[in-house]
């Protein structure tokens, strides 16, 4: 009861209050840049609760989804390999940290030169930005295997694949997942930016089109949509993370 109250009811009320405040304060706005919320919401309805949703939003989701998937597969694969070779760490860790520290947007112009402006470029840039936090988290996760457990696997003659499947992977999963959570917002930003630069569809394209032609209510409606999609995806990732923690996490148990 109390959980429902503080987990759902209170946040919902606060959100409503903020939206209400926005509504009231912006109701008589004549500013070109900050149109009334009423206009934004009606733009939201015409733009997104219509057939445009499929042509504008689905390409963006598809790019983020595929980019993240490639990032996860590459990050986990390479991260697990680096993590298992203890001696490799001092040589590769500085380079990995360097790659992670680069602002993802920075690699956009060279990637456009190399890969052109098609979907391949966008998905490639998203994957190339999302891969670093996942890769580094995987290295840490594989490293965090308890030494006793490693001994156990060796004493009982578990072959490498069995140790990977039954000991390393479950230990690493919660770490990997926190990497995925960190990568998701980055992938989002890069998706919007890559579409902003050059595209024929997608949310970023829509924002760039509407803002350069001063259709600000439309632009803001896209911002609201991005926020909502972000909340939904983050919630999904968090819920999946909790389930994984229940299955693999040890701290929940001892």
């Amino acid at each position, binding site marked *: 009861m109390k959980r429902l109250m503080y987990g759902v009811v209170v946040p919902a009320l606060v959100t409503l209050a903020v939206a209400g405040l926005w509504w009231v304060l912006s109701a008589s706005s004549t500013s070109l840049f900050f149109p009334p919320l009423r206009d934004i919401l009606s733009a939201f309805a015409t733009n997104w609760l219509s057939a445009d949703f499929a042509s504008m939003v689905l390409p963006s989701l598809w790019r983020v989804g595929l980019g993240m998937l490639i990032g996860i597969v590459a990050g986990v694969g390479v991260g697990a390999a680096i993590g298992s070779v203890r001696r490799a760490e001092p040589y590769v860790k500085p380079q990995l940290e360097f790659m992670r520290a680069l602002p993802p947007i920075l690699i956009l112009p060279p990637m456009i030169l190399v890969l052109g402006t098609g979907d391949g470029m966008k998905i490639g840039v998203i994957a190339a930005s999302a891969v670093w936090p996942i890769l580094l988290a995987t290295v840490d996760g594989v490293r965090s295997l*308890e030494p006793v457990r490693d001994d156990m696997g060796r004493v*009982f*003659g578990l072959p490498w694949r069995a140790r990977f499947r039954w000991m390393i992977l479950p230990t690493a999963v919660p770490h990997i997942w926190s990497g995925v959570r960190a990568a998701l917002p980055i992938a989002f930003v890069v998706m919007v930016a890559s579409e902003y630069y050059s595209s024929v569809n997608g949310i970023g394209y829509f924002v760039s089109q509407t803002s350069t032609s001063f259709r600000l209510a439309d632009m803001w409606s896209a911002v609201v949509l991005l926020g909502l999609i972000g909340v939904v995806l983050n919630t999904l990732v968090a819920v999946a993370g909790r389930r994984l923690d229940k299955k693999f996490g040890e701290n929940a148990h001892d």
Partner: protein
Amino acid sequence: MTETAGLSRTSPSSPDKDDRVAILEVDGLRKSYGSELVLEDITLRIFEGELVSIVGPSGCGKTTMLRCLSGLLPHEGGTVRIAGEEVTGPPDTLGLVFQDYSRSLLPWLSVADNVRLPLRYKPISKKEAEERTAEALESVGLAAHTRKKPWQLSGGMQQRVAIARALAYHPRLLLMDEPFASVDAQTRVELEDLTLRLWAERDMTIAFVTHDIDEAIYLGGRIVVLTRTPTTIREVMPVDLPRPRDQIATKALDEFGRLRASVFTALGHHQ
């Protein structure tokens, strides 16, 4: 078996006059961590069917020694042979019960799956793996808890799972590293008697490491007393207490008290 000349520098050339078969032969074992010498010279025989207790002060390198004996840790001097074979990695005739037993179990697998896991990669049939798992869990008294996760069990029960896992592996030599150091007194007594029963029932040699003197005497047929680091063997004492042993009757014997005093003295305590 071929003897590699030159390697067995420290091994005695005269054959043991004892006609028992040594399952574990350690000669001049030496190990340091960096510049810190932990094991200086361990020379020891354990014979088939024995239950030998190994006592030593806290931090004297008991775990280090077991890890060297089991081939988990490379040593820098001397030789270790198990069942006649020089140890270079963990041999499949060896089982180990870890000091940190709860961490040695996998929390994402059920009790039965923890016990079965090593068997899946042995050249035995699925059916046999199944039977060995059930038998081992039965013999440690966990038949009713096979589907639970280890963290749903008490410390003593978790230790039984770790023992069952080693038993199901059918080792000829079982090394136990302070297995009961972190359970309560009542559970400890039960697990000691369980160990004695399993040892009597099975064709298995046990080396039991502990820093509890009474436990060492109660279980062992011989007691190996270690020194502080850099560690050597201080003394090996035979235990002339009748078997089967009994927690009350055996511990009330004069001989038990005498042994306790000798081990105490050997460990460097002075009354």
